[in-house]
């Protein structure tokens, strides 16, 4: 693990995603105070920290849903700051948001089809989604709003899977789910991670360390430490202090 001092800038080697000194505000509230991180192709990187330290805002800043006022977000070397969110998505950045946000009035199949690229094959997208998540294949015409929390999470992940994304931003996938369902979600994410790079925000530290290759720890809108994701991280006193503070 690195020193507890915040890194000044992300490693700018040949990273898939480079976030450098990003400052993001909600109104006048300064939420991200110079976040820097990088994600390499094929990696799973966890973003951990207490509630309200800026994890979700970091994902929203990458997507330009909440545009940074300062700093740089580069994806495959191209600047994303100033781009529209739909353009960021079209470049290959997908989002599995907190609380799923499936389209509840649309059917399961429609939720999958809308996530597939417009010029792609919707049937192939459905096949991929249903092969990966057989539980969804049993109810393709059910309204997404009628699914259980776990099924909705599967659908949200399926939407990210079929979107032809190179990078998936996954926000709190285990939030509000029963332990057995969390295990299913973890398996699903591990399957997705075989094909796609993930930047994962997760409060469940053992789950995050199990899935991730590396992690960044956020506190008060800044990266305070980062390192390899190992089971030992969950017992690290310094990390535990930040997470429980």
């Amino acid at each position: 693990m690195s020193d507890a001092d915040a890194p000044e800038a992300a490693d700018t080697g040949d990273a898939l995603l480079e976030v450098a000194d990003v400052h993001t505000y909600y109104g006048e509230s300064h939420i991200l105070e110079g976040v820097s991180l990088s994600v390499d192709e094929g990696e799973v990187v966890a973003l951990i920290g207490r509630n309200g330290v800026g994890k979700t805002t970091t994902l929203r800043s990458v997507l330009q849903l909440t545009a940074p006022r300062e700093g740089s977000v580069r994806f495959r070397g191209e600047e994303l700051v100033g781009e529209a969110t739909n353009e960021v998505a079209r470049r290959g950045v997908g989002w599995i948001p907190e609380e799923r946000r499936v389209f509840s009035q649309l059917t399961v199949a429609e939720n999958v089809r809308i996530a597939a690229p417009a010029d792609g094959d919707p049937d192939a997208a459905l096949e991929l989604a249903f092969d990966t998540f057989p539980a969804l294949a049993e109810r393709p015409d059910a309204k997404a709003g009628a699914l259980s929390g776990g099924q909705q999470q599967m659908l949200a992940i399926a939407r990210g899977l079929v979107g032809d994304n190179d990078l998936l931003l996954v926000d709190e996938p285990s939030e509000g789910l029963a332990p057995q369902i969390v295990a299913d979600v973890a398996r699903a994410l591990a399957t997705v991670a075989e094909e796609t790079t993930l930047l994962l925000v997760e409060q469940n530290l053992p789950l995050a360390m199990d899935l991730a290759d590396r992690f960044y720890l956020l506190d008060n809108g800044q990266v305070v430490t980062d390192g390899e994701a190992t089971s030992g991280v969950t017992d690290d006193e310094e990390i535990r202090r930040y997470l429980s503070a």
Partner: protein
Amino acid sequence: MMELPLVSMLDALGQFLRPSTLGEVVVNGLSKAAVYAMIAGGLTLIFGLMGVLNFAHGSLTMFGAYLGGLVLVLAVGQTTGVAARLAYFFVAAVVAFGLLAALGGAIEVGLIRPLYDRPPIYQILLTFGVTLVLDELARIVVDFYGLQPISDWQAALGTKPGVLSSSYEFAGVSANGLALFEIVVGALVVGAVWGFLTRTRYGLVVRAGSEDSEMAEALGIDVRRVFTTVFALGAGIAGVAGLLLAWDPKWGASVPLAAETLLPAFVVVIIGGLGTFRGTVYAALLVGLVDATMTWWFVNAIQFSALPEMTIFLLLVLVLIVKPQGLFGVAEVGGH
């Protein structure tokens, strides 16, 4: 001897329950429903996706009546046959749809788009202002060409083929030709919009964007462009509805048509549930049938012809008391 009111009401009930009377009321109700669905359909599409209460919708309907009516007046002569007049109606519908869609798209891009990040009151005030400008513009132009702005444009009414003014009898049920035509046109328009929303990818995008525009954007959908398309579509439908009303002597092409259509359109949209097209279609059916039923009762039994128009507002109050979000309403729409 004075007839007891109860007896006369029972007589009227007996007359109302005759199959021929019920059939006529249903046909009249469906024709009213077709008109209501058309004038409210565009309004609900726009509100459902964008959360914008478009007070200019009635003015767009009125523009459709005049522009579509102009096509008919220019194309139809005294010797023009029935089939040609009906064909010209559909040409005029395409023209009215295209022109109003272009105007609607321009209003969305030029005026409403800069206000999306502001509270809804800004959009309401803006569209109300657009209404004043459009109505005044129509008044000036109509006056310039020697027409009375507040009177129905008789030349446009006169292009209607005679077959639509006649009555026809099927299985003992008498039906007016125009009522049947309104049902056909309304069904075609509602069917086309329904097919667009449920059978096309763009319709899927509109439904998704109506529910969660931020999530739709994050899936690579240019929601702003969808906003423009839907505003244009809603304005185009208003234009076609206006054209249809230009042939209906109960409405007619006139500047006050803007206000006359806006009020029932809002009633139907609110009863159906703000922002749901399906709800608007069902609400139009409900309002149309209730309106036709009460019209029959107030004309034939109670003899107080001013009251039928009030019944749709009473229906609105009733629905709002029982189900404040409307019959098919969801808690929140237009979440951009």
